[in-house]
């Protein structure tokens, strides 16, 4: 799912999405989900068009888009790693795993810009608590990470496709 990086308004597509939801204001969240699927994020021009289509003030659309964690207002980096910091993962070394990833990728946890290629996001519970600790690399879940064993952990991360950044440490 490569993100389309464009500010060019996708006029007809967004109008179609809104129409399929009956242009109902209460469908705003669903419409935003589908627009984000289209662009990879929610460009300003798209938010303006959604407001027009649903006959809502832009402030209301902007308000909803900024409230929910899953809506992105900036284009995503090409690669993303999400590390689970849910309680089960936390107890099984999730925080240590997050630190190991920060050093390996040389990006800061929860920095939306990352290094331009990778971002590292925390998530709270992916529901795979039985396989803790877990992380997700570009949509694929990697489970049962060996936090106590640096050598095996490095192998697992390598296999998951997480590169060693130039300044990174395994």
């Amino acid at each position, binding site marked *: 799912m490569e993100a389309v990086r464009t500010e060019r308004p996708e006029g007809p597509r967004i109008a179609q999405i809104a129409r399929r939801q009956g242009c109902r204001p209460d469908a705003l969240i669903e419409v935003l989900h589908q627009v984000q699927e289209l662009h990879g994020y929610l460009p300003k021009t798209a938010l303006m068009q959604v407001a027009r289509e649903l006959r809502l003030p832009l402030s209301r659309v902007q308000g909803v888009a900024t409230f929910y964690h*899953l809506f992105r207002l900036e284009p995503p980096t090409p690669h993303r790693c999400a590390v689970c910091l849910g309680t*089960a993962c936390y107890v099984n070394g999730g925080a240590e795993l997050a630190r190991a990833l920060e050093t390996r990728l040389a990006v800061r946890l929860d920095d939306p810009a990352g290094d331009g290629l990778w971002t590292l996001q925390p998530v709270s519970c992916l529901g795979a608590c039985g396989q803790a600790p877990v992380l997700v690399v570009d949509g694929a879940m990697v489970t049962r990470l060996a936090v106590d064993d640096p050598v095996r952990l490095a192998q697992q991360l390598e296999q998951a496709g997480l590169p060693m950044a130039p300044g990174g440490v395994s």
Partner: protein
Amino acid sequence: MTGGQARLRCCDASGCRSVGSGTLLAALNQAREGLGLSPEAVAIQPVGCLRSCGQGPLVAAEAADGTFSLFGTLTPELAAPLLEQVAGPAPRSPSPLEAHWIDPAHPFFALQQSVVLEGCGRINPESMEEARALGTYGQFLRCLQELTPEGVREQVKRSGLRGRGGGGYPTGLKWDTVALQPPGPRFVVCNADEGDPGAFMDRSVLEGDPHRLLEGLAIAAFAVGAQKGYVYVRAEYPLAIERVRLAIRQARRDHLLGEGIAGTSFSLSLEVRVGAGAYVCGEETALLHSIQGQRGTPRTRPPYPAQSGLWGAPTLINNVETLAAVPAILREGGDWFAAMGTERSKGTKVFALSGAVANPGLVEVPMGTTLRTVVETMGGGVPDGSSIKAVQTGGPSGGCIPAALLDTPVDYESLLELGSMMGSGGLVVMGESTSMPGVAQHFMRFSVSESCGKCVPCRAGTVQLLQLLDRFATHQATPADLRQLEHLCQMVKATSLCGLGQAAPNPVLSTLRHFRGEYEAACREPRTCQPATGLRP
């Protein structure tokens, strides 16, 4: 266990999928063909959660003669031996499956009592036929044809069922309140916004037996006189969303939803609404705002949603597990349900067991079962054999229960007395190496990030609490910090607008209550924080 047919039930829920049940399922189908076996001879069935999530992917194997075995941590190479096990002339010896055999008589399975999870792991969640063969929708049709809404509510009241989302409000009473509002439109809402880290009970029902949930919701709609309902599912559960949407389409196709159901005048339409990542939307008034396409901020109550909910109409909101218990209650009668559990907490409860525990997974046990039974006897304790330090219940709104109190029977009241709460049912086991101020800090970080920002005590208070907890984590804290921490906890608890803020201090308060020594030891000068010296001016 149909006569003569062998059956392999392969767990196809998110937990097992994340460890490769998809490829295993494909390998099983391929191996069946390779061995020249027909689907009539061996049925290969994708099913919902088989409970023992830590040992996934799991397969339950039933031979034609009814012999049952369970296998875990399977790989695609074991597909052929699995088929031979149930349908071969003679299983290989020594069997490559030996190391994968799981004892179904282990207390983890033997002590379970499936009511809500009755169909979970037995049926293909995407098959309406299998759901109906197990009796799903039978009670809904009986309600329409034989019972009155009052009669249905009476059974639910008799059952003593209480809200399983954490609050524990009596379900029958809530249904009455909605039903007895002045005439006009009403709504039913299923709260499937299971956001507590470490909780996956509702997800298992949504993924494993979605028709049971729809039946419960339809019965609720009949009992309160609603014609429109919503299932609000968090966006983080894509498989659950897909399966509930499919189930709604199937039910509509079979005229179990829609206009004039089963020749009666009762109509019901259901719709899935997907969240967008906001923990606070599990709070009922925030959830209603979100369904209306607004920011998920809570509002003051009263009026309660039962009086004024979606678009100002009376709205019934129940959690997934609550609704999924309803069909069995009607089938067996309210008294049957009330015979299980304790004096004030009836029936069974589903728990998601995780953390430092040998057998993580899903367990359904009667209310009143002790924590020790669940985490030690069933869960097997800490994997390396060391002792359990605490069990966390109730997620970010709950607390840590120390090992010394593990003999507490689990019910709503007993957990509250210990400064924790039932919550939705996540049980996270913690070993000796887990720092309790660290756990409190972990939950507070979560509350800071999930506070919606509407009221000051929660928005600013949680940030201040986290900063104080950070000082303990770095051994910078002073006696004044410890006092400030307790004071601020009480204030945030007393003055926040909704449950999120009111409960956010609970992880701190409960660890302070049961593990105060760890906070004192985490001070810059531990001696000064201890009561003997610390309290003197």
